[in-house]
């Protein structure tokens, strides 16, 4: 019934996903800057 051959695609097109990912990258940059 629920075919999810590509479940990565909906994630990448989900606007919600880019906020935590962006914040994660920002956190890494902050870590590198403050070390």
């Amino acid at each position, binding site marked *: 019934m*629920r*075919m*999810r051959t590509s*479940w*990565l695609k*909906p*994630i990448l097109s*989900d606007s*919600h*996903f880019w*906020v*935590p*990912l962006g*914040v*994660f990258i*920002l*956190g*890494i940059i*902050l*870590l590198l*800057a*403050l*070390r």
Partner: protein
Amino acid sequence: MALESSTPASARARSLHTLGVACALAAGAGLGAAEAPTKLVTTGISPFLISLGMVAGVFVGRWTLPAVLKGTGFVFDDLRRRPHLMVWAVLAGGLWAVANTLTVFAIRDVGLSIAFPLWNANSLIGVLWGFVFFRELRGAGRGAWVRVAGGALAIVTGAVLLGYASSQGLVSLAPRPVSGVAAALGAALLWGTMYIPYRKAYLSGMNPLSFVTVFTVGEVVTVLVLAVTFEGGWHALGEALADARPSLFWLFLGGFCWVIGDLFQQYAAKYVGIGRGIPLSNTNQLWGLAWGALVFGELSGSRPAARVLVLVGSAVMIAGAVAIAGAAASSEEHAARSLAVARESTRYGLDASEAEASLAGIAFDRLVAVEADSAKPKGWKRMRIGDAVIAAGALGVFVWLGASARRPALSLNVGWMIVLSAATLAMLASVGYLLWKRTGFA
């Protein structure tokens, strides 16, 4: 007719609100208690090793508790049915780990008393993301808004007062104030944003016990990468770990306590949402302070003004928690939540009714069927043996570390330790029982 059918539903919603609030407060107690074993670790261990030691304990706990409470078969079935959430869970674990490391920098640069209240502002970030992404507080009346937003602000204010009192008003000369504040605020942003994946999982009908088993993979991998990077490579890390061996037991124990607290926080995020759940579980600062002051004598010799600040800060924080606890979601808010559920279900091809049932604390049919299957003697035996092996392995790790643990020379107030341990255990046990009784850990 409408009244008859809506009354049981609203009674159920009220009951789940109470359950979620109880979970958040229990989380505060569990997370606060987790700070105690780490206080036993004396100086001389790098902050990255402390973080790694705790996360190793967290990893063990996150695999053991779900196996014992629900069984690994249940967890893997839940993950298989919502594979996309594994990506979200790993990302959430990474966010946690980076934030945790940022707090190390913040403490180094501005001290715990300034850093702690700053990163506790994560609750305000949580309220914001809950509103923007998950329609939390949409349709809430002005009263609920005032209670939730005011309560969250009061908890942050209480945190500032408690932090200030902990330092007894003597702010040490911060060597790098700007970078310290940046690190603490960064941690708040990351820890507030980490709840986006939490909420996403529960709006999709995932069980919190399944979510945390994958969350911890992101957590442990990120912490390991950071520890290797900052400690100067694998070899140096291995040597540092060997030197820290007598202290590892306490760090593991702290991590294990932390998992229990965090599990309740996960259930709070599920049943009351992140806007209400995070500020309430941030009451862990009260418990942390109680452990520090009563058991470890951290405020002994402090000036009367500092003690007054502790009382005022605690009262403000409790008032904030009471305000949020009293702000149950209206039917309009529940309708807005259903829209958020529908969005997730449509995008990821899930069954919205399963997610709604899960949010109502009911295990959905298919999982009930899976559990029924697993109850058959052969399957049950196979699954339970696997779970027992995991539990025995975790116990073995603790015994192995405990055998070489060294009790640090630190004066403790044993009486208060017993009182606080008993209070925490009673709270965790009673809320855990409620959770099992009302939802079967759904």
